[in-house]
């Protein structure tokens, strides 16, 4: 198995696709940080009488999701413009100063990241059908379960590597912005938050990984796998939103969809709350989806005739 995974990594690192997807993700997290920092600096320069230290002190003491309004110079008379500017500054601080800044990075991973996971997983699991190389590998004595296991393992490890890279780069960038803005970093509770958010994100990614890989195997095509998994990813979000609006039993059905349970888990990445659902139930449902998708992939691969 190690040989197979090693071979899969050899094939993977020679493809351009993983690097492109990683670059897209990095741009997606670094660009907002850069733009927010530029905006923050411009605003500070424009309003020299606003004390960012005071804003930071108040914002730091406020709960994670609360919108804060800082009024410099006391409660009255209220200067509306400065109030709004202060609120904007506080918002930018949230995305630039650790530990809150990591939440934005985890949110990006939960949004675009999931979509990229679908593209990547379906591509790695499905392209060998198009090239016909799956026949070459199986004909040379690799068992089908071993082949699929090596694929899934490689995809999972590559995704973990990608997520770690994104987090390290994002972390490094926000260390810099934190130091530039506040001159110090608030580490209290950071490690626990970071680790739990990492695990939550990977769990949800594992669902989309297994879904995309399963459809690519079942449909014997990377493109078909991507299309179906992406349609599920987008379509389900819409359906869950519609069902949730219902006051009848339909709303309860939505609780068994992937996106609903993914949200229940990912909402834990926010400092503030554990959401209004049952996170362990959500974790159980997501694990059940993973088991179903992976079992289906193994089942269909075992039964397939690999014709030219």
């Amino acid at each position, binding site marked *: 198995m190690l040989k197979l995974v090693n071979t899969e990594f050899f094939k993977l690192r020679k493809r*351009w696709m993983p690097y492109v997807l990683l670059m897209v993700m990095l741009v997606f997290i670094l660009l907002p940080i850069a733009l927010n920092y530029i905006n923050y600096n411009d605003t500070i320069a424009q309003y020299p009488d606003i004390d960012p230290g005071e804003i930071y002190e108040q914002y730091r003491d406020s709960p994670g999701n609360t919108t804060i309004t800082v009024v410099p110079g006391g409660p009255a008379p209220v200067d509306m413009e400065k109030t709004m500017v202060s609120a904007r500054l506080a918002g930018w601080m949230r995305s630039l100063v650790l530990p809150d800044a990591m939440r934005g990075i985890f949110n990006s991973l939960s949004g675009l990241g999931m979509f990229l996971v679908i593209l990547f997983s379906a591509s790695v699991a499905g392209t060998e059908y198009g090239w*016909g190389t799956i026949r070459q590998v199986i004909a040379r*004595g*690799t068992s089908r379960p071993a082949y699929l296991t090596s694929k899934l393992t490689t995809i999972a490890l590559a995704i973990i590597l990608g997520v770690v890279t994104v987090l390290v780069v994002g972390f490094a960038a926000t260390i810099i912005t934190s130091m530039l803005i506040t001159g110090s970093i608030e580490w209290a509770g950071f490690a626990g938050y970071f680790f739990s958010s990492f695990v939550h994100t990977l769990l949800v990614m594992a669902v989309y990984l297994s879904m995309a890989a399963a459809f690519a195997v079942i449909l014997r095509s990377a493109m078909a796998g991507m299309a179906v998994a992406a349609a599920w990813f987008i379509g389900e979000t819409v359906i869950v939103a519609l069902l949730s609006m219902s006051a009848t039993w339909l709303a309860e059905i939505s609780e068994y969809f992937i996106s609903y349970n993914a949200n229940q888990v990912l909402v834990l990445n926010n400092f503030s709350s554990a959401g209004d659902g049952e996170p362990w139930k959500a974790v159980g449902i997501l694990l059940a989806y993973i088991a179903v998708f992976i079992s289906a992939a193994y089942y269909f691969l075992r039964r397939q*005739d690999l014709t*030219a």
Partner: protein
Amino acid sequence: MEGMLQDNIAIKTIGLTKRFNSGRKHITAVDNLSIEVPAGSIYGFLGPNGSGKTTTIGMLLGLIRPTSGSMELFGQDTGQELPSLLKRTSSVLENSPMYPYLSGRDNLEVFVRTKGGVDKHRIDEVLEQVGLQKRAKSQAKTYSLGMRQRLSIAIALLNDPELIILDEPTNGLDPSGIIEIRELISRLGKQGKTIFLSSHMLHEVEQVCNHVAVLNRGKVIAQGPVDELLHRGKMLQLRVSDSERAAGLLRQVEWVKTVEMADDCLFVEAEEEKFPDVNEVLVNAGIRVWEMKKSVGSLEDFFLGAIEEGQQGVDHA
């Protein structure tokens, strides 16, 4: 090697059948196929397009699930053991599948890594063997069909297999490439490897193979050693003054196996040492012999005859 020593058969299929479902239709691609490929032989697998050759190879290599029947490789039932038995084989598959974004060398490295136990220096050896060393660093997607075929053959040679299964290995090759592959197959055969060669190129098969099977509509219609099938060394072609009387006379001779008339010629099947006696029988009976030579049947004639006979059998049924 122990499997081969056990019963000296590299490939054996018993009643192998594959039916594909296409909507409501059932297409029988391979029908009750039973063949035996002797270890160390170069075995030609012949048949027109759609006769089931590639499907049979797919089943042997674990790519296609048989509907019924069984297979043995190296004397062992394939069942659950197929992946481990396939490690002792190599194959050149139809359409030469490979990783298009990898170079020729990297394609070989993929299979060296997958297989294990293969020295990386072997990559250079096989690249040289198939004449691809100059383009080894180019991406496979830039290769011509012939180059892809050479790379497939190189992949098949990587691990010094006991059995090599080749599905149309000369497809896309130019005449010199075809000769090289023919020589390579002969060389591998001389090294004691079993070669299972599916091909349309009857002339090529005739030159390298010592056993053949002819497949038509999924059924084997003839199989055996090439010399036996073509009656090589056993058929005498004659032109005589009275063909009909000569045929009647020879049919009564005990050691003459068959006598056939075609155009103005007689074809007499007998052991080679009896050929002078044929002449003697005819001359003693007052029949003048104008011409007498060994008849060398071609595989092409045999193939077309076998297909035609098979077709008639189907039509009568």
